[in-house]
Structure formats: structure tokens, C-alpha cells
């Protein structure tokens, strides 16, 4: 595929739809092991993202990602703001000066985003954070080296569900130690929606 400005905006709109729909659910996930604001944070941020990317004309996907990054950083609040903000900023940088964003470039962009998240949060895989969803998805995509909607969706979903079994060692949930086991990580759930939205954009292309 070739990832265009139009597709990028579609992706962001779909992310926002899912987050608005699941705002309460995300917040509920954040209650037992956090401060109960993840849904509120994400909904506020992505609502604004959709407004901003539709307000202006964008020449490149890189510019769309940059605008998204800035808005997410400013509006989300909480840990997910700098984390997702950094992710979109890294994608923006990875897509800079690329005429066409083919599968390999896009996968590279997602990998850069993952690295950005890990660096920002000083987190590795298995700490019950959104890294636990991003890393398996990126690895799977790198392995296959092309985009398949099903692959993304299934990998993201399984990865998100797996966070239920792990103990948090980063972020607010880490204060709860063993008691964090048995709950899905809210950030992993929102990351699942992000990849679910991506899968749908790819689906529609067919």
C-alpha cells in the first residue's frame, strides 16, 4: 500500500471514533490500577486531533503526524500524552521527505514510534504498558514485511489481553505491585484501538 495524507487522516478519525466510543471503558480500566483518567485523557486529545487535521490542508503524511504529535502532547495530559505524542513525532520524522510511504517505510515509522515510546517511558516489553502491544505488532509487521489487516488486529488483540496476566513495573499501576495482576493495562487497550483503526483503514483499501 501507499500511505497517503487521506489515509492518515482516516486513521486518526477512526482512532478517535473508537476512543470516544470506549471512553468509559478505558477510564474503567484505569480505575483499579491507576487514577481513572485514561479514557478522559485520550478522548480529549484525539477529539482535538481530528479537529486540527481537518482544519488545515496538509501536503505530507509527515505534517499530519507532526500536527497530531503536537496536539496529543498538549491536550492528552497524563502519561499517555508524552508517550503517544512521542510516537507520532517519531513517525513524522521517519516520514519526512518521503515522496511515497510504502509498506517498508510505514513499518519503519511504527518501529521508530515504538522506540520513542520505550525511550520516553524507560519501559521495555513485559512491564504492563502500551509497549506490550506496540512491540509485538511492530515485530510481526517487520517479520512479514507487509501489511495485513488481520495480522495487525489479531496480534494487537492478543497482546493487549496478555497484559492482564502481567505485573506492572512502570507507570501508576506499578504502585499496586502484585495487585496490578488481573487487570488489562489501559494504555494497551487504547493502543489496541489505534491498531484496530489501522487494520480497518487497510481493509477498506481492498
Amino acid at each position, binding site marked *: 500500500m501507499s500511505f497517503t495524507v487521506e489515509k492518515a487522516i482516516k486513521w486518526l478519525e477512526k482512532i478517535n471514533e473508537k476512543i470516544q466510543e470506549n471512553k468509559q471503558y478505558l477510564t474503567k480500566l484505569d480505575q483499579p490500577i491507576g487514577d481513572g483518567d485514561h479514557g478522559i485523557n485520550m478522548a480529549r486529545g484525539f477529539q482535538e486531533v481530528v479537529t486540527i487535521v481537518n482544519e488545515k490542508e496538509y501536503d505530507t503524511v509527515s505534517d499530519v503526524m507532526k500536527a497530531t504529535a503536537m496536539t496529543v502532547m498538549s*491536550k492528552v*495530559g497524563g502519561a499517555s500524552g*508524552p508517550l503517544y505524542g512521542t510516537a507520532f513525532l517519531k513517525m513524522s520524522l521517519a516520514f519526512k521527505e518521503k515522496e511515497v510511504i510504502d509498506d517498508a517505510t510505514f513499518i519503519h515509522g511504527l518501529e521508530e514510534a515504538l522506540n520513542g515510546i520505550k525511550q520516553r517511558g524507560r519501559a521495555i516489553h513485559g512491564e504492563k504498558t502500551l509497549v506490550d502491544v506496540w512491540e509485538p505488532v511492530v515485530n510481526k509487521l517487520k517479520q512479514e514485511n507487509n501489511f495485513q489487516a488481520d495480522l495487525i488486529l489479531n496480534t494487537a488483540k492478543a497482546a493487549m489481553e496478555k497484559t492482564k496476566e502481567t505485573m506492572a513495573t512502570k507507570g501508576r499501576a506499578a504502585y499496586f505491585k502484585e495487585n496490578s495482576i488481573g487487570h488489562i493495562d489501559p494504555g494497551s487497550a487504547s493502543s489496541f484501538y489505534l491498531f484496530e483503526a489501522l487494520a480497518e483503514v487497510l481493509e477498506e483499501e481492498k
Partner: protein
Amino acid sequence: MGYVGIVLISHSEKVACGIKDIIRQVIQDVPVEVAGGTDDGKIGTSMDRISAAIECADQNKGILLFYDLGSAKMNAELAIEMSEKENIKLAEAPLLEGSYVGAVESSMGKSIAEIIDTLNKNF
């Protein structure tokens, strides 16, 4: 030349302002700026508030940022990266206790490196 500026980053605006009150009782000259709560005054942190506080605290002698919990640190790091200024440092010390020491040290004309050194010894 001015003083090393102090920025207080807390999830709560009240906390940041209250710490500033405590410092101001003792130290009047050092710039102390608050970045507490989210943009809409809720519990959380805001990169924009941190960036604004950095701007105001600058007297060309460096700026020291103190933060409370997890996301405050990430937002502070982002704000540092986004800023054009040099010599902004994140202090790894408790917010209230550390910033009080930092402000007293700054008032004595200490450099940012000297202050960080004292903080490392104290906490």
C-alpha cells in the same frame, strides 16, 4: 547575572503554588515558576504549562525542573526537548524538599551544576 530558575511541576496546582509560598517566605529573589495541574485545572500535568514556566523562570543562568510523579517527568523531558534553551535540567529529588534546597542554593548564587551536586548529596 541572575539566578538559576526553579520550576515546580506537580499533578496539583495547589501543591505547586503552596510550595512556591513556602519558598517565598524564605527566598524572594530567585525566579520560582509553577506548572501544576492540566490545562483545564484538573489533576495531571501539562507540557504547555511546563514550557511556559520554563520561559518565565529564565534569567540566563540555567533552569532546574522539579517534578512529582511519573507523567510529570515525561512531560518535563518533552518540554526540555521542545525548548530552544540550553542548560535546563531535571532534578532527581523530591519535589517539595528538593526544590526548597534548590531555591536556597540558587539564592546564594550557586550554578546549576553546584545545585545538582548538593541535591545529589542530600537525596
